[in-house]
């Protein structure tokens, strides 16, 4: 494995769009060649070396290349967009669209992630150790199909519209979510270990959502069908008793979406 270390040095007064920071693009390039790769800031392009110091050469292929971003880059967008293989470690917070539309490989964000991480991703994994904002693994504006494969793990909390339009893959959130988690999903799995504020699984027509904590405001179009305990989805385990709901009957579909809600934390449902 070859490591390329990018250390941010500033000039982020306006946000930067760095969809060219991917193992695919760094593979086969020397540190010097990587320094010259152009990334966008507003309507102009500048070499990576304007924003980062670069150490280490890329590997022979994307699989062999690891990119380590050694610092906070909340104003650098689109890192790892469309990557197919290899690994990116961001040792701080990441900007919008990290790993969006990726098809393979691994991204680790040690801090927080901004909105749109893993948008419409097809494969690979994203591990966010801090919190995440809106639209994680979601469909793009106007599209009905979000993430279709791979896995996103969020250790902290996420905010709104997580996994919107999910058709496959898995999103696991250890913390809480707020509004519209799993809106309009038709497949895949979302596990929220903490609480959800409202509208979980709104307009869902398929797929599975598990909420381990409390749902403050339950979505009205769901009907309880059973009580199940100790859920298991391959390697993901959700111990305890769950109320199983079918829905969302607010939309004219057959209610094929499944929503599991912890019995202990939702006595009033």
């Amino acid at each position, binding site marked *: 494995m070859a490591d390329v270390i990018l250390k941010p040095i500033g000039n982020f007064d306006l946000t930067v769009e760095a969809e060219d920071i991917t193992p695919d693009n760094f593979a086969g390039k020397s540190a010097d060649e990587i320094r010259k790769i152009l990334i966008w800031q507003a309507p102009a392009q500048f070499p990576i070396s304007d924003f980062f110091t670069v150490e280490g050469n890329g590997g022979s292929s994307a699989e062999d290349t690891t990119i380590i971003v050694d610092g906070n880059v909340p104003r650098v967008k689109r890192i790892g967009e469309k990557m197919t293989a290899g690994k990116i470690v961001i040792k701080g917070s990441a900007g919008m669209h990290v790993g969006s539309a990726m098809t393979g490989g691994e991204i680790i964000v040690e801090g927080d992630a901004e*909105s749109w991480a893993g948008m419409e991703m097809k494969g690979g994994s994203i591990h966010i150790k801090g919190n995440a904002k*809106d639209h994680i693994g979601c469909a793009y504006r106007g599209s009905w199909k979000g993430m279709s494969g791979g896995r996103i793990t969020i250790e902290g909390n996420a905010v709104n519209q997580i996994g919107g339009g999910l058709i496959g893959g898995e999103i696991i959130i250890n913390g809480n979510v707020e*509004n519209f988690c799993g809106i309009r999903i038709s497949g895949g799995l979302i596990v929220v270990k903490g609480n959800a504020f409202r509208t979980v699984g709104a307009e869902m027509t398929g797929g599975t959502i598990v909420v381990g904590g409390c749902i403050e405001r339950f979505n009205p179009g769901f009907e309880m069908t059973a009580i199940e305990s100790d859920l298991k989805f391959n390697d993901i385990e959700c111990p305890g008793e769950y109320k199983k709901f079918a829905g969302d009957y607010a939309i004219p579909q057959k209610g094929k979406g499944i929503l599991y809600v912890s019995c202990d934390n939702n006595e009033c449902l």
Partner: protein
Amino acid sequence: MEALLNTGSTIDEGRLAKGGNKYSEDYKLECAVCWMCAEDYASLGCPDKVAVTSRDGRYTIAVYSKVTESVRSGHVFIPRSIWANVVVEPDTFSTGSPRYKGSPVMVEPTNEEVLSAEEIVLKLYMGGE
């Protein structure tokens, strides 16, 4: 008191804004006003003026109070204007539109002076220039 802030047009707010009178006393008297129900007004000690503070505590604005039957307890209304927008939540939930309706705020009695629209721009936004 914790409350949800609703903002919106009133006919005189519209008349004064469209007529280019945002720096008039009438505009201040129409818009720098926090409407609340009698119960909430009494629980605050019937103050003439209240300070409305954004939930994160970063911005606060003094406005006149007004009793109305049009809102329920725990809800307050300020006509759409610079006073209301000082405390409206700037997060847009990734939609571009801030929470003009239903922003969480704190409402407390105050003796602070109610600023004019121009004073807000000069003192709060332009750093006293």
